[in-house]
């Protein structure tokens, strides 16, 4: 979220002197959220190095190990730290692998909706005219349907169009598409509004007089001036994307049980809620909540830190 990992030393030094970095270091919940988020992402992506089993490989599951409670409870077994489900799958491994899928889908859909939204927004704001009108009307319609409904519809329809054999393989792609289609309008509107204002400013007119090509003006001159609100929106939308993915998977139109994301794990675990296997559902829920809360805390801090009125 913050650019703490900028490689070049010159930039790093600049970053450490910036207001943003100062505000970050003096905001306790932002630091805590960043550490938590980094820990969640690192543990998820390094999972294959240390978890006791690959939860997606049926050959490694053993029914003899089914339904163990968490390690610290009576009947818990090492190395199944958070217990196992009815098929002998280790919950901790499943959560780490699942959150990897959730995070990847979240990143992919935010990146793609940024590209689509910024691209269309710049073109609409800079050129105006028919493109602009058309884009805004499409936006009106998309905004008149609740986003979660768009995501469900897209996901349902694309799945319906795919042959059944491909549905499980294409599930991640379908989810990304569904989230992008429901999220791009927000970026497009923000960028368009900002681009329409910047277009009239003197530096843009100067660039035009110098015959700088339109594409270069849009990308190198106008775009950097629209990025602040986009950065905040993208951070908060990363949380939203993870939630949408989890919701669709929970409803059974997302990731299949063979490659479970956090939402799928919660859906599968939910069936055992009444048989007392609470750990099967509570730990994925906890992981999902920590992930989204840390992203939202960072987004909240970023919004305040970048808001000139609150300085």
């Amino acid at each position: 979220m913050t650019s703490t990992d900028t490689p070049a030393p010159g930039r790093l030094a600049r970053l450490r002197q910036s207001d943003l970095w100062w505000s970050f270091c003096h905001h306790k919940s932002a630091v805590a959220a960043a550490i938590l988020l980094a820990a969640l992402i690192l543990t998820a992506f390094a999972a294959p190095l240390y978890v006791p089993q690959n939860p997606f490989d049926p050959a490694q599951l053993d029914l003899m190990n089914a339904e163990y409670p968490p390690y610290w409870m009576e009947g818990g077994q090492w190395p199944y730290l958070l217990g196992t489900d009815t098929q002998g799958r280790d919950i901790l491994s499943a959560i780490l692998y699942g959150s990897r899928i959730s995070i990847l889908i979240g990143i992919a859909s935010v990146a793609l909706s940024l590209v689509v939204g910024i691209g269309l927004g710049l073109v609409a704001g800079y050129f105006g005219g028919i493109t602009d009108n058309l884009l805004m009307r499409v936006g009106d319609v998309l905004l008149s349907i609740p986003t979660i409904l768009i995501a469900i519809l897209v996901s349902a329809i694309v799945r319906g169009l795919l042959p059944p054999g491909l549905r499980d393989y294409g599930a991640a792609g379908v989810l990304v598409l569904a989230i992008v289609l429901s999220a791009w309008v927000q970026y497009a509107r923000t960028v368009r509004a900002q681009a329409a204002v910047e277009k009239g400013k003197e530096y843009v007119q100067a660039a035009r007089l110098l015959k700088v090509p339109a594409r270069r003006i849009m990308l190198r001159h106008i775009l950097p001036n629209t990025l602040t609100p986009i950065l905040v929106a993208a951070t908060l939308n990363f949380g939203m994307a993870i939630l949408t993915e989890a919701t669709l998977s929970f409803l059974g139109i997302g990731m299949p049980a063979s490659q479970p994301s956090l939402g799928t794990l919660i859906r599968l675990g939910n069936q055992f809620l009444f048989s007392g296997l609470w750990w099967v559902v509570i730990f994925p829920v906890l992981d999902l909540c920590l992930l989204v809360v840390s992203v939202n805390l960072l987004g909240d801090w970023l919004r305040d830190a970048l808001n000139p009125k609150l300085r």
Partner: protein
Amino acid sequence: MIVFLIKRLFNAVMVMLVVALMAFMIFRFVGDPIQLMVNEQTTQAEKDALRQSLGLNDPFPVQYARFVAHAVQGDFGVSYRNQQDVMSLIAERFPATFELVLVATIISLVVGVPLGVVTAIHRGRWFSEGLQFLSIIGVSLPSFVIGILLILVFAVMLNIAPSFGRGDVVAIGWWTTGFLTPSGRAALVLPSIALSFYQITLVMRLVRAEMLEVLRSDFVKFARARGIPAWRIHYRHALRNCLMPVVTMTAMNVGSLIAFALITETVFQWPGMGLLFLQAVTFVDIPVMAAYLCIVSFIFVALNTLVDITYALIDPRLRAARS
């Protein structure tokens, strides 16, 4: 004013026509309707006759116009799955969703407004900062998670509230209500709390922001100078001036609540429209999906238009700005 009214209504109708176009395209191009309606023994000639009689050979605009004309009269065809009239299927389920959304809206106002006032008055104190932090968590919790947690605590562990279904309902004409029986009321508790959770945090944050603004204004300072007791200033003078945006947001969010009810209904097996829609999604039952999309969008667009028009009636400046 008349010009504004006409423009706004025209806009709403256009949006609905595009939504209907989307619904129609889903209906027409996802799978072949004929294949889904016939069985294996049907001959090619019979299929062609059916295609002709249903008007599927007509040009696209004609078919679309027919779809819209039927939809306006509430005719969305017959469900592929159980051969029932789609509109009667939805009408049967509508009361359940409506009651759920109504109760959730009431809860969100009754809980959210006082919380917002308290956090605004006591800004900086530990409990209002705590509530503010909780509201971020509330926004981050997906609604199915809240449902699952509520079921786990109140139905599985404490066993004090039912966790699925609607309980006993009483039929009044075509409407069925769960308000009149004890089991119906008990069944409403958990789902409506789960659905209202997100809305409570929204109302709370909005009231807090508005109150902070109003408390700085001159008339509040003047009221303080007159020696009016603090609670009276806060709840009578200041709060009244914050309620307009709250009413607007509540009205506009009813559409999203209906959409989100879909998730709550799945968790609690609540027999509403959302559950019907989700079953339709699983069975690719296109007429039900198309009808649900049209009806939810209609409620959404109608409420937005109504709010806009009411605003223009109250505040003349908006008429000039928008028309």
